[in-house]
């Protein structure tokens, strides 16, 4: 297992700076969530960590290796509907292994167990359009876990789900994560999701994106969904909301 180290990443597109001197660490096995208002460059940051895009300045290290090009140590969980419609659940889940030239024959049982683990047992032959949003995101997760990455990069994976399904998937993610030794960097704009999942919450400001705050989450694991209804949880969310409010006010409204 390896951690992620982001050092002084800056990135501009045509219409101005998106990220400015962003630095943070995610220790090996740590669950880090990044929250921030829309347009703060969260997704760009995650794509740079994965090597899908390049920063103008700075560097990303995974373990000891400097990232250049799509990183083999990472697996990216995209937002909804990133499944190949022509592949069954099983074939979608094995896509990453296929492209990374991992031996399929010897990993077939492991993949089957993985599908079971993420709650897709019995769905192997279904096509994505036959699945609900929640099930589709389980396939996305299985596809990423199948390549056995050190780091899981998740880009608002539950944003397109309805409120109840989202809560179930948060709990499911923690259950699955507990069985897999993975470092996770998880992006969301939902504060309660960020706090519920994370060991640490990073708050991003925008225009350009910077890390505005870095908050440790003290709650024990395993965490029940009822944790979200406790006073301590509410206070922590409140505190993070305060930071974001300040950030938004300082950077000129919504």
């Amino acid at each position, binding site marked *: 297992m390896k951690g992620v180290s982001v050092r002084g990443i800056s990135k501009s597109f045509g219409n101005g700076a998106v990220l400015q001197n962003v630095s943070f660490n995610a220790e090996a096995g740590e669950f880090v969530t990044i929250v921030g208002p829309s347009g703060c460059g969260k997704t760009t940051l995650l794509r740079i960590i*994965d090597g*899908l895009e390049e920063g103008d300045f700075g560097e990303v290290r995974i373990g000891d290796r400097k990232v250049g090009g*799509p990183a*083999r140590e*990472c*697996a*990216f969980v*995209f*937002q909804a*509907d*990133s499944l*190949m*419609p*022509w592949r069954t659940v099983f074939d979608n889940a094995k*896509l*990453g292994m*296929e*492209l*990374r030239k991992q031996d399929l024959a010897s990993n077939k049982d492991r993949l089957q167990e993985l599908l079971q683990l993420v*709650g*897709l*047992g*019995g*769905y192997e*032959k*279904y*096509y*994505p*359009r*036959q699945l*609900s*949003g*929640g*099930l589709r995101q389980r396939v996305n997760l299985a596809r990423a876990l199948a*390549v056995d990455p050190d780091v899981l990069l998740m880009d608002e994976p539950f944003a397109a789900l*309805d409120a*109840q*399904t989202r*809560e*179930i*998937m948060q*709990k*499911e993610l923690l*259950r699955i994560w507990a069985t897999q030794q993975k470092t996770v960097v998880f992006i969301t704009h939902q504060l309660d999701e960020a706090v519920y999942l994370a060991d640490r919450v990073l708050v991003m400001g925008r225009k350009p994106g910077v890390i505005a705050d870095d908050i440790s989450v003290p709650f024990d694991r395993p965490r*029940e*969904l009822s944790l979200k209804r406790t006073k301590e949880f509410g206070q922590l969310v409140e505190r993070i909301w305060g930071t974001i409010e300040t950030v938004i006010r300082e950077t000129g409204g919504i």
Partner: protein
Amino acid sequence: MDGTRETVETEVLPTGEETAEFQPFQEPFGASARNSNRRRAAFGISAASIIIGIVLWQLIGQFLVGNSLFLATPIQTLSGMRDMWTSGGLPQDLAVSGEEALFGFLIGSALGIAIGAFIAKNKVAKRVLTPYISGFYATPIIALAPILILWFGLGIWSKVVVVISLVIFPQIINTEAGIRTTDETLRDVARSYGASSIEVFRKVELWWSLPYILAGLRLGVGRALIGVVVGELFGAKAGLGFAIYNAQSEFNMPQLFAGVVIFAVSGIVFTYLLTLLEMALAPWAKTRP
């Protein structure tokens, strides 16, 4: 699990251990009883429509028009077809026209897919070729048929070329559109797992384009049949279009109708076969173009 269940589309979905007993809200693709009943009903409607059409045609031809020179009835057409068969011309005409249509369709479709993929991946080639493609697609290439006959002779290859020229352009346009409209997220997914651009093409773009390519093939069937008839009208030694031309010059309406009916039936049969191919190759594509 804490017993909470996720609710989507009015059905209860599984979480964790509940998966085993869970009833999927939709069967995997395949013949469920309800599906095959629905298909049989749809087929019945089409069959009834054809039969009613033929009966109307017979009644109008027999009682309203009453003169086979203006409108040959289905029965007269059928006997015309029998005459063509027994006099020996029809089997050979069918073979010649079938060959022309098949070769032209296969070569034209293959070239169309290849050129479409090429211009989708190569911006310069697209700039260079697009004016010609849009131009030729919009031109009645039929009008060029006499020249093609002049160039390629009276044998089957002049007709094959006419068919190719009709089949190729819609296929180029469809294939190019399929690859161009490929979901960028799916390309990103493949790239994030280290896919080369050839792998992105093979594992994402080509599959995404499959429904477009199949639609191009379906368009091609009709155009191939038209190409054969028109090509043969302008100059041939044998073939169904040639037979239609001869029947017309002899005012033999039953035989003329027979030729036309054979083309129409071929069109229906081949389009249906392509629909079957589509269901076999792309069962996942029902909701997409």
